[in-house]
């Protein structure tokens, strides 16, 4: 089976990505996660996010995370797409999709990848408001999300 990792400024198509995940004869379960730009900052209204990354290192880290998930849950296909650049409200930021023979493995595998991506992948996010901007701070809750995978 295969792992596909992409870091790109272009948008991605849900139908295409799903097709590449289901294009295998073994796996009956597919789970996907998609993150979107939202007005999630308390108080001010976010109008866009700006994403930068460490070219080269990011792809290596994502591949390592995907490989760990693949082994731990016997996943089939794994697709990770993360966008960078200026992303206005409503835009897609990240896609993680996995295929598996079993429902639980697909859910856990996809969640594991997102949890580690949030903690380890070398992306930095800046929120743009109408008249200002602010770098997003790392959330402790994202760190705690790793606890459940450490048994």
């Amino acid at each position: 089976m295969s792992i596909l990792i992409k870091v790109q400024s272009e948008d991605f198509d849900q139908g295409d990505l799903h097709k590449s995940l289901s294009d295998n004869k073994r796996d009956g379960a597919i789970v996907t996660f998609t993150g979107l730009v939202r007005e999630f900052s308390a108080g001010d209204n976010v109008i866009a996010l700006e994403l930068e990354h460490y070219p080269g290192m990011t792809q290596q880290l994502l591949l390592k995370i995907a490989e760990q998930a693949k082994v731990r849950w016997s996943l089939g296909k794994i697709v990770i797409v993360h966008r960078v650049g200026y992303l206005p409200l409503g835009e897609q930021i990240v896609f993680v999709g996995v295929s598996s023979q079993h429902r639980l493995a697909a859910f856990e595998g996809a969640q594991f990848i997102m949890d580690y991506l949030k903690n380890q992948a070398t992306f930095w996010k800046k929120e743009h408001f109408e008249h200002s901007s602010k770098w997003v701070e790392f959330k402790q809750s994202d760190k705690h999300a790793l606890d459940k995978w450490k048994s």
Partner: protein
Amino acid sequence: MTGSEINSTGKVTLLFFGQLKERLNCDSLVYTLTEPATIEAIKLDLASQQPNWQPWLCERELLAALNQTMVGNDTVVNSGDELALFPPVTGG
């Protein structure tokens, strides 16, 4: 060979990302090593050369990657290495 040339000149490529890049107003620089030094020592040396960088380079939360692998501040840097400094990641 490019690799050994870089090695012989004792140069280290430094990269900065995220808020640190913005605060230093610097993407990258080439740092010259006279002998192998820890990341901590390189940060202190840079801060002494550029006093306005000092508060940002000494932030406790700052992370380091040497040749694209996460490492601690006591790791030794050699000629030809790529050293990146950045705040905690916030992607996804």
